[in-house]
């Protein structure tokens, strides 16, 4: 067990810092408070990328987002992950941000950031200012009456699609969580973002061997074309043989409290032709039950179109280049 866990001393007022790009910002706004910050960067074991015996790869929790995106193994075998990371934040932030910190970044809901307004995530029981407020960036899937915030990560959308596994170390020993079970929906406890318990530390993230390097695409739609969070993003990974889809993964970002996958839609695509019509049916399945609010209902149609377009781009990843024409 790393010394950092001992240094936290089981006291919730003590916090860990990795890249600092989120926690230092939250401290400045008095959204997070810390009596003591424990800098985990000295834990060298968490700062590498290496091949696992099962053919997969482990991303160290303290490896930076930039070094991960540009790592030769990741670029070659998991280009979907590279693309998603590079769609996030800016070059400077990616040079600082770590893989573990990326999973634990907090929502960008404006009211969460404004300590003068009620917010159940920041101050449990105070109410949600977004539901009847300005909610253009908020959730359309999996939200609750308590909170309609979205989880803002790009990297995690790709990790969800790739069936990653989170490695956790803590006072009770080591454990792993499948990516789908790492983040949670808000329910009536929106102050809890994920299933990491206090005092635990992420040591690394494992990605299975299958990288979908032939047919993948990441599409991020936002209000400006760079250095901005997603309104809707889509990670698509397809395994295609003889013009038939053998396996499909579709994960959405910017629409829910966690990266969003709907297994029924992915099952529907199995053994089907990779056609616009089939992708449209999958998109309808994914958005079934989606609910919009005053300013974000546009996201439902936007997400459907983004899914279709991204699945088509995945058929020929070259078409992800700016200005390239779709292949279908």
């Amino acid at each position: 067990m790393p010394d950092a866990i001992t240094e936290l001393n089981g006291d919730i007022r003590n916090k860990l810092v990795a890249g600092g790009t989120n926690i230092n910002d939250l401290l400045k706004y008095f959204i997070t408070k810390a009596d003591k910050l424990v800098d985990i960067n000295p834990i060298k074991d968490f700062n590498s990328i290496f091949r696992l015996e099962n053919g997969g790869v482990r991303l160290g929790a303290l490896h930076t987002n930039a070094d991960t995106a540009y790592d030769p193994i990741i670029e070659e075998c998991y280009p979907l992950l590279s693309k998603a990371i590079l769609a996030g934040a800016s070059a400077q932030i990616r040079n600082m941000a770590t893989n573990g910190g990326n999973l634990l970044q907090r929502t960008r809901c404006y009211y969460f950031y404004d300590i003068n307004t009620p917010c159940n995530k920041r101050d449990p029981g105070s109410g949600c200012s977004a539901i009847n407020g300005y909610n253009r960036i908020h959730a359309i899937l999996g939200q609750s009456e308590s909170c309609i915030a979205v989880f803002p990560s790009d990297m995690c959308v790709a990790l969800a699609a790739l069936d990653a596994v989170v490695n956790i170390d803590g006072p009770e020993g080591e454990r792993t969580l499948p990516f789908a079970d790492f983040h949670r929906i808000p329910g009536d406890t929106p102050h809890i973002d994920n299933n990491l318990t206090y005092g635990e530390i992420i040591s690394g993230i494992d990605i299975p061997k299958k990288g979908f390097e032939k047919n993948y695409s990441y599409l991020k739609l936002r209000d400006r074309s760079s250095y901005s969070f997603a309104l809707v993003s889509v990670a698509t990974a397809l395994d295609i043989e003889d013009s038939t889809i053998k396996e499909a993964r579709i994960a959405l970002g910017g629409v829910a409290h966690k990266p969003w996958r709907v297994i029924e839609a992915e099952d529907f695509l199995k053994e089907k032709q990779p056609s616009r019509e089939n992708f449209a049916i999958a998109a309808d399945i994914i958005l079934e039950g989606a609910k919009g609010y005053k300013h974000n209902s546009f996201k439902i149609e936007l997400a459907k179109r983004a899914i279709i377009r991204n699945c088509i781009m995945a058929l020929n990843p070259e078409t992800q280049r700016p200005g390239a024409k779709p292949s279908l």
Partner: protein
Amino acid sequence: MNNRNEHSVSLNVNGRHYQLDIQPWVSLLDVLREHLHFTGTKKGCDHGQCGACTVLVNGKRILSCLTLGVMKDGAQITTIEGISNGENLHPVQKAFIEHDAFQCGYCTPGQICSAVGMLGENKAQTREEVQELMSGNLCRCGANKGIIDAVMAVKEGGYNE
């Protein structure tokens, strides 16, 4: 740690060694500006959203407003004051002047440090890629076209040390 909560930190800034006592909550940006008086590095937003505070830490461009001085103990830091070789301007600086890459100049130290960092990374070849990898530096005067022109001119070898 002393009784004012200060930690002893050693930093190498622009080739010179500094030993300082700083409180743990002080950002690297404030250490550079307020403690060491390298005021070339600018505070735009103080929240990671503008790039004005960009400096090079161990050769990599980062935002000095989002890291803490105490986390950079032992680091080599280059600010805009350390980019030129004495009176001899860095190629990026020369190109900025010739391509009209600034108006008020507030974002410029961050733009130049970012451009130097980006050239070192060598991930951007086309103009579009340069635009994308320079997007972390906002310019409220809208000098962006000149900035990208300047960086492209350096990439194309038009400027030498």
